[in-house]
């Protein structure tokens, strides 16, 4: 397609602004997301379709998506117009999947200015549309994407079967084709060594727990994604309600774990947070992985009142801008991993030089009320 490439970095919300966004329970629930998969009735699924068919699907779906009021003035482009670095930036912002980042000709992307709606065209399915919200807002995200989907079904002919629901490329997504998920920051459960039993019991409830960047990734920075696994035989609202209930329990467990750690092992907690600050504020070379894990502890330090509350957005911003593609975008895409580690450390030292050392005496003042059990 001969469209002029859009400037992605001019469109994306700045990391500083993203870090200032708030939602319910956002100390623990970083974001909520509901994703729907849809396919057109008369075309092969993207993984099996030949290029001309994929292009035709893209040409059918993209204008339909662009015509929706929610996606007016949206960023809209074909994947071949995006550089590898741009795609990686989008992955780091959690706007697209790693699978979609690997797509080129025949795939497309549309997302709105607020970054609250994002539509991937020809990922694993013809359409993967998602609504994103800060904090715990599963119901809001579901109703937003439900509405978008209802508008879109008037313009597109979906593959739907009375018995099996929405038909998807992978049978695991069949039926509602919905994935409801939340990104959780759980340093308390990790430090208290309670995370594994929690993950196991969540798994038993038919929910999946994944790492920071979704399927098959590790839990960097104590960030975990919890989502439904089953999509057939249960309605969307039931799935949302079930996940919401489980998330409320995880929040409670995380709060309890933090409280107990502070009461029983305050030195252990302060030691972890103090060392995290020490390294982040003084290192001259630091990897992305170590940075995430230590920033997670600083974030916990803000939650526990060891750092002033206003430092939270600074920490959250660093979470975004210290990732590899973001660093390359800011400096140069020719940076080697070693050079990135030096620049990352420079950035961290610079940004943290005005953040005073963690004040253990104030610790505990910023803690949430102990949850009622």
């Amino acid at each position, binding site marked *: 397609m001969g469209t002029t490439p859009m400037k992605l970095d001019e469109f994306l919300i700045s990391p500083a602004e993203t870090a200032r966004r708030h939602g319910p329970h956002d100390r623990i629930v970083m974001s909520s997301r509901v994703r729907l998969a849809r396919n057109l009735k008369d075309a*092969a699924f993207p993984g*099996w379709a030949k290029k001309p068919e994929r292009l035709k699907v893209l040409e059918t779906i993209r204008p339909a998506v662009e015509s929706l009021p929610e996606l007016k003035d949206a960023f809209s482009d074909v994947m071949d117009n995006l550089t590898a670095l741009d795609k990686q930036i989008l992955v780091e912002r959690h706007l697209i999947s*790693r699978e979609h980042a690997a797509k080129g000709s025949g795939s497309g992307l549309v997302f709105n200015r607020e970054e609250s709606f994002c539509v991937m065209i020809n990922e694993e399915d013809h359409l993967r549309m998602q609504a994103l919200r800060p904090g715990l807002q599963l119901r809001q995200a579901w109703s937003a994407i439900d509405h978008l989907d209802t508008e879109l*079904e008037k313009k597109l002919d979906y593959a*739907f*079967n009375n018995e099996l*629901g929405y038909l998807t490329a992978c049978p695991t997504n069949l039926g509602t084709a919905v994935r409801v998920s939340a990104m959780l920051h759980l340093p308390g459960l990790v430090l208290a060594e309670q995370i594994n039993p929690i993950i196991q019991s969540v798994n038993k409830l038919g929910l999946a727990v994944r790492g920071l960047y979704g399927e*098959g990734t590790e839990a960097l920075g104590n960030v975990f994604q919890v989502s439904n696994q089953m999509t*057939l*035989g249960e309605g969307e609202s039931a799935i949302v309600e079930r996940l919401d209930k489980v998330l409320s329990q995880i929040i409670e467990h995380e709060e309890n774990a933090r409280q107990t750690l502070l009461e029983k092992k305050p030195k252990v907690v302060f030691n972890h947070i103090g060392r995290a600050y020490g390294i982040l504020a003084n290192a001259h070379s630091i990897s992305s992985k170590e940075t995430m894990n230590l920033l997670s502890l600083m974030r916990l330090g803000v939650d526990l009142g060891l750092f002033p509350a206003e430092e939270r957005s600074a920490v959250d911003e660093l979470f975004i801008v210290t990732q590899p593609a973001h660093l390359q975008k800011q400096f140069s895409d020719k940076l080697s991993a070693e050079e990135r580690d030096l620049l990352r450390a420079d950035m961290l030292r610079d940004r943290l030089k005005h953040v005073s050392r963690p004040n253990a005496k104030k610790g505990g003042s910023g803690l949430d009320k102990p949850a009622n059990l």
Partner: protein
Amino acid sequence: MLCSICKEKPATVHITQIVGDKAQKLDLCEECAKAKGVNDPSFAPADLMLGLGASQEIEQSAGGVETKCPRCGFSQADFKKSGRLGCSECYKTFAEGLEGLLKSMHKGTHHAGKVPEALRATREQSDRLKLLQKKLAKAIEDENFEQAAQLRDEIKQVTPRGTGLSVT
């Protein structure tokens, strides 16, 4: 830890495989691992993605491995390779093999969620028809012919004319 296939012998082979963007962990005993051909490149990703036995289940369905989707040409071997289907019609083509698979991976096998507006009326109608037909069969079985006649009339009313929807 016991082998996830035989559930008898201790698992000594632990594998994590990434297929597309899906990761699956398996713990197998040596024999089952060998039987599954873990070190063999023909080890079916469908098994990893959709659970063990998935590829076998598919193979056992009518027509065997030779079955191809008449619309998109996708074959069972392709499914075994990718764990994904070729087009929406494939769900009809491979329906038999998929049934057990869906049962094992989902809460149910009947869609219980959103229905596109345009199909809602016909879906409600077909659900109602199914219910009436069930009632009719029961009435006949119970030799309750008066009720059966009533139900038959109701079914006639609900059945859209000329749609070819069968009443039997």
